[in-house]
């Protein structure tokens, strides 16, 4: 009996030792965040737009250099008063076979504006008074006031163009996306994977690959293993400790690019002592932002105000705070902060790096005599109790995603009730209103400079910086890239050698 069992076992093991299931013509990407929905008009989640980019197109898009490029609109012009925008449209067709034309643009903008849609970005379209199909391939937008940020809005994922017929029939875009995009949805299994199939009729030419599989794997070690064994071609989360492993592996390529994130420890300025700008400056001076970036986020560039590093909107005279413990202690004394002051720090559960950063900050604040109670809360609780609802926190750590125009990041910081940190006054509100409606680039540069200077002088955040966007790609992959600032996956030019 013994030899037979052994033989059987061996045969069984051998039978399964064939190579793992892979398909040469599909790209597999592993990432940690899945979309909440595939309806681009009802979400503001970066993870959603990372995926919708493949199913839908926008009128204009962000190119590799960060500039705005034509997509469904081949050309556009603005009237002298800045109130009429005219777009010429390309020839394209939707996944359901219907032809893309001006009526789809009209229906899309109207859907975004409609209360019933509930778009979180509706306010960005409020300035549009009318959208008119001038011809089959020409569309005009009439604005109530000049809107210099409109092009940035139209280039962002939430302005994806949907087919008018499907809009009229109240189609379930959340589960069954229909757009003009380079890929169609094959299957989406929540928490597991999403399969995309190439759209042979894509108006810019069919993709080189048959399809894409996106797998949701939270664990970065598992992502790396999948990449090394060839089960995945792209891994988006590389742990700091694993960077040397990737760099040493000849089959892998490490990509480091600036991201659009602003990483911060947010301070609830409604709370005692935190309502004093001197205390908030002291906290900034107590923290060594470079160390936080290195330890928690795999490196990055420090920032001194609420804008990603390298942004042209940050005034040249606004610098990162750096660390100065003596100055920090002096400011705390001046503000009369008691010795037993204890801060309540709420950290969001699924985000390991934010939790690590919070613990580093806790340690650093201890050096200037501030006690910090750390509690880790689940994401749902963070959203409803910290970021929203009662805003029950003194300090939390989070990253604010990149936006193409400063309105996207800064609007809402003019009124204390409109943002979670309780920042804002009439000056800031006035500057923001000016920036929203003045088309003169110099005026905008000046007013946003004022806002960002104020957010440095009376900081509602302890600024960390902008991390590098670090991801790893197998050597056989060509043409994969992520949109600057928006971080969307672009599979359109991918080929596998």
């Amino acid at each position, binding site marked *: 009996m013994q030899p037979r069992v052994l033989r059987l076992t061996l045969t069984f093991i051998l039978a399964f030792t064939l190579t*793992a299931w892979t398909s040469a013509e599909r790209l597999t990407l592993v990432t940690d965040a899945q979309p909440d929905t595939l309806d681009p008009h009802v979400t503001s989640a970066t993870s959603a737009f990372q995926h919708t980019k493949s199913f839908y197109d926008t009128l204009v898009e962000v190119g590799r250099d960060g500039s705005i490029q034509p997509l469904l609109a081949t050309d556009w012009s603005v009237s002298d008063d800045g109130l009429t925008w005219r777009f010429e449209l390309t020839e394209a067709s939707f996944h359901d076979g219907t032809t893309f034309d001006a009526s789809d643009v009209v229906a899309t903008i109207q859907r975004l504006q409609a209360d019933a849609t*509930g778009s979180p970005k509706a306010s960005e379209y409020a300035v549009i008074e009318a959208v008119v199909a001038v011809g089959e391939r020409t569309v005009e937008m009439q604005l109530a006031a000049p809107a210099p940020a409109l092009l940035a809005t139209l280039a962002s994922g939430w302005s994806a163009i949907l087919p008018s017929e499907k809009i009229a029939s109240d189609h379930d875009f959340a589960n069954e996306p229909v757009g003009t995009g380079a890929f169609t949805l094959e299957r989406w299994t929540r*928490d*597991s994977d999403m399969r995309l199939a190439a759209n042979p009729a894509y108006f810019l030419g069919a993709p080189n690959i048959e399809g894409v599989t996106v797998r949701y794997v939270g664990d970065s070690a*598992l992502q790396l293993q999948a990449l090394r*064994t060839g089960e995945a071609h792209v891994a988006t989360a590389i742990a700091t400790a694993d960077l040397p492993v990737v760099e040493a592996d000849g089959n892998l390529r490490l990509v480091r690019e600036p991201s659009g994130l602003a990483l911060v420890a947010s301070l609830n300025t409604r709370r005692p002592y935190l309502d004093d700008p001197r205390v908030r400056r002291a906290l900034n001076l107590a923290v060594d932002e470079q160390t936080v970036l290195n330890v928690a986020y795999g490196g990055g560039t420090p920032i001194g105000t609420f804008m990603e590093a390298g942004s042209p909107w940050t005034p040249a005279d606004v610098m990162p705070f750096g660390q100065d413990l003596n100055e920090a202690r002096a400011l705390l004394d001046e503000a009369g902060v008691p010795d037993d002051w204890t801060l309540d720090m709420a950290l969001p559960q699924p985000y390991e790096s934010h939790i690590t950063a919070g613990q580093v900050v806790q340690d650093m604040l201890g050096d200037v005599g501030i006690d910090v109670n750390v509690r880790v809360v689940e*994401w749902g609780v963070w*959203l*409803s109790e910290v970021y929203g609802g009662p805003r029950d926190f003194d300090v939390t750590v989070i990253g604010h995603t990149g936006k193409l125009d400063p309105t996207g990041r800064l609007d809402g910081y003019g009124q204390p009730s409109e943002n979670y940190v309780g920042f804002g006054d009439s000056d800031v509100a006035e500057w923001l209103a000016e920036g929203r409606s003045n088309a003169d680039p110099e005026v905008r540069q000046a007013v946003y400079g004022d806002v960002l200077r104020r957010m440095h002088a009376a900081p509602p955040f302890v600024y960390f910086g902008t991390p590098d966007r670090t991801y790893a790609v197998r050597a056989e992959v060509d043409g994969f890239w992520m949109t600057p600032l928006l971080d969307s996956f672009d599979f359109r030019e991918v080929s596998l050698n």
Partner: protein
Amino acid sequence: MTRWLRTAGSFGLTFVLVMTVTFIALEALPGDAASLRAGFDGGSGRDAAVREALNLDRPWPERYVAWWSGLLQGDLGVSLREDRPVASIVLERLPVTAALAGLAFVFSTTAGVLLGAWAAFRAGSGIDRGVRAFTAVGLAMPEFWFGFLLLLLFAVEFAWLPLFGLPPGGGVWATLQHLLLPAVTLAVPRAARQARVVRALVLESRREAWLRTAVSKGAGTGRLRRQAVLAALPGALPLLALDLGGLLTGTIVVEQVFGLPGLGALLIGGISARDVPVVQGVTLLAVGVFLVVNLMSDLLQQALDPRLRDA
């Protein structure tokens, strides 16, 4: 007849109790599906609109009653996260878990019965000690740890088997490759438990009078062993049923480790999304399977072992 009614009654009560506790536990957790769906826009009051659209602004007893009245009409409700009927979501995930649990059950039962019987026939020998060591280790190993160990060894170190996931429409062969390690992970502790019980049962049956009679009548060793195992099996049925019924919950951890898109993954995803109807749907299925399997084992045991019928 009264026995039947009592059994059905206790099963019904268990079912209602489990569903109620699940519902209340989910309600008691902080955060809700609306705030998660509204995400960063919740702060601007969008969560209230979502909450209204999902009927989450209604008090929980009202939603609880609505869930039962839906269920009585055969409606499991609509997912709060996916806006799709819960029944179709559960049906999509069911094949993965069913295949995994089925494979694990075949592995564990085969290994458990064979090892148990083998150890019993060689009681006191090196083989017996080996099997007993295996049962001790098998029972002590936590599934997530053992699963990771298998992954590291066979998917990373040797790279013989795929690391995670399940290719949709990948054919029987690819599916088996992906399910092998998770099924083994699930099977080992169960096989250990079964081996232990089968060993004890076979040892016991060897001491029984009918076997001694058979020996005195000159029956061959092979036949005696077969008879002893067959006589012991009905005694192992309750444990087998417990294992089969419990496999559905056992897959929760293992599906997480191996990234399999089954019911376990759906349950975990549902809980973190506060998707009450989905969690209720999966729980309903798990409890239903558990109760039905145990009921069937009860009946089967009575059918196989005449001695139990008078009880």
